[in-house]
């Protein structure tokens, strides 16, 4: 089992004829993701790696019954792409694009919510349910099917953690990169709830970073509602205040959003925080009593 995506996922790729869109559409299809179509205005009738291209998301949904969409369009057009997907009835929208203006995300997120759909990202690596489906840009070969759920604000750091989990014999049920922007779609709390309710997930690795207070809220939520073992990791302990550390959302503003506050919140909730990524599998095993 897994959360959000699985064998039944029917994916379309918005911006499939672009450089990134075509490259990653091919990779996703090779992994076994059910990529049923793509969109690119004016390019209906073409194919990318055997995937049919449509002018609009509405056309693609009508022809393929797609339920999930991944967006690879440039930042200036990402809001429109998210609107289009939600309007066409897509229920899970994953926006990979980096550099989308914050207020565009605010608008898109609220519209998607009204349409009863979910957003992941923007500025995210996507998600994977190993050996079933991968939507995004993740390097699939490091993942292994298993029982640990992974939630992360980062891309390569997630891979680092996943690689050490896999090496320690701990496969993953699903792994989600929520995105590095200050405002993004599904976040710790919603995903923790999904993993808590997923019968095939037995433990959770949560990878946070400086900026905002989502980790503090997650710690509070875990304490109240999550019975499965959770181990956290926080990057940016040595980050200076007021500087944006790569991700638009990774910034300590006016003294809040520090790693120390987040670590303290997790520890107060009884959630172990790894000092280094390679400690995560061991800490999870201890909590699982293995």
């Amino acid at each position, binding site marked *: 089992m897994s959360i959000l995506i699985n064998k039944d996922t029917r994916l379309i790729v918005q911006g499939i004829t672009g450089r990134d869109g075509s490259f990653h559409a091919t*990779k996703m299809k090779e992994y076994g993701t059910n990529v049923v179509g793509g969109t690119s205005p004016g390019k209906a009738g073409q194919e990318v790696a055997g995937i049919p291209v449509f002018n609009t998301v509405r056309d693609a949904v009508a022809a393929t019954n797609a339920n999930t969409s991944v967006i690879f369009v440039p930042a*200036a057009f990402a809001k429109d792409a998210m609107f289009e997907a939600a309007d066409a009835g897509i229920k899970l929208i994953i926006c990979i694009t980096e*550099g*989308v*203006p*914050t*207020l*565009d*995300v*605010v*608008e898109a*997120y*609220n*519209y998607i919510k*009204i349409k009863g759909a979910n957003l992941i990202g923007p500025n995210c690596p996507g998600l994977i349910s190993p050996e079933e489906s991968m939507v995004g*840009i*993740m*390097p699939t*070969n*490091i993942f292994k099917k298993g029982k640990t759920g992974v939630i*992360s*604000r*980062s*891309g*390569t*750091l*997630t*891979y*680092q953690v996943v*690689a050490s989990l896999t090496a320690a014999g701990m496969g993953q049920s699903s792994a989600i990169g929520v995105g*590095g922007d200050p*405002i993004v779609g599904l976040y710790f709390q919603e995903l923790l709830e999904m993993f808590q309710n997923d019968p095939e997930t037995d433990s959770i690795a949560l*990878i946070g*970073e*400086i900026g*905002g*207070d*989502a980790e503090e*809220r997650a710690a509070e939520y875990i304490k109240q509602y999550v019975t499965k073992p959770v181990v956290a*990791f926080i*990057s*940016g*302990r*040595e*980050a*200076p205040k007021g*500087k*944006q*550390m*790569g*991700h*638009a*959302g*990774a910034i300590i503003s006016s*003294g809040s959003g520090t*790693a120390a506050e987040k670590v303290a919140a997790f520890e107060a909730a009884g959630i172990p925080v790894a*000092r*280094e*990524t*390679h400690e995560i599998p061991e800490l999870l095993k201890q909590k699982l009593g293995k």
Partner: protein
Amino acid sequence: MKVHEYQAKEFFASYGIPVQKGFVCRTVEEAVDAFKKLGVELAVIKAQVHTGGRGKAGGVKLAKNVDEVRTHAGNILGMDIKGFIVDRVLVCEALDIKSEYYMSILPDRKSKSAIFMLSREGGMDIETVAKETPEKIVKLPIDPTVGLTDAKAREAAFALFDDMKYVKQAAPLFQKLYRLFVEKDASLTEINPLVITGNDEVVAIDAKMTFDNNALFRHPDVFELFEPTEDEKKEQEAKDKGFSYVNLGGEIGCMVNGAGLAMATMDMIKLYGGNPANFLDIGGSSNPTKIVEAMKLLLSDKNVKVVLINIFGGITRCDDVAKGLIEAFKLIETDMPIVIRLTGTNENEGRELLKGTKFHVATTMSEAGHMAVDLCK
């Protein structure tokens, strides 16, 4: 991106938000002229710098006559406020203030919308208010699908005022301010304090705006006001090359693909007793040109004694990254010790290629960290 108070007030004025009349001055003489032009009994002279705490630093002074304007402008121009040298002052009428309030608009991570933050504790450091008396701050999320309705604007105004006479002025002011915030893609619009004057007028006597860097592409009028510091210039240069760079002042230069991994790398160096020279994210993939550019950036920092390259090869295979590194270092002349940690797809092949080169090759991240810290001693 930050702008100065006088620039924020120009935006305010262009949206019809009441501010005092004032002039920006670069010399004492200009300040004296501005005072004469204003023709007021009392003027305020305010340092224009991209930092807060101007008042505490002595950068805001009242002046009753030309001599006082001369003295204060002379003192403030050239003043160092938290590392920023004052090269401009704003001279404006000092209003008769009855009471002070705080208001701001900013995107909120939790409600995933813009919110109004309002407090009757105006003129104070709002972070102190938030910490010590959070109940004195009202937060109102704005649904972007309907915007700031008349009713919501009134609700916001009632958070500050009990008297309808002020609510009637503040509500439309808030709507204009919200429109400015949205239309210019601001990341913060703050008035501290918003005041009621002796004439019962609601006026913004201070103004602070910062803007979303990701949206500057559609706001040339905002971008025109960009005044980068030396650090910001270096960060911008890096950004133009597709990097994120932040100087940290230590000796171990770091080159990493991905922001989270880059942060984890600098945390690890510190944990092992070293000092990271920088945060540098070269992006998800890595090719020789990028590595050459990134090395140049690291070597331009004279504090750097050791370079640590930490690459997670995901979609880019490690053997390709290794070839890229070898290629890149043919173009760079340096005696600097370089530690490389490569992991991911084809990592053994990648490491094999790096054997017999001058690089210090590590298998795990912690091994690389220890190597870099030891080489620095």
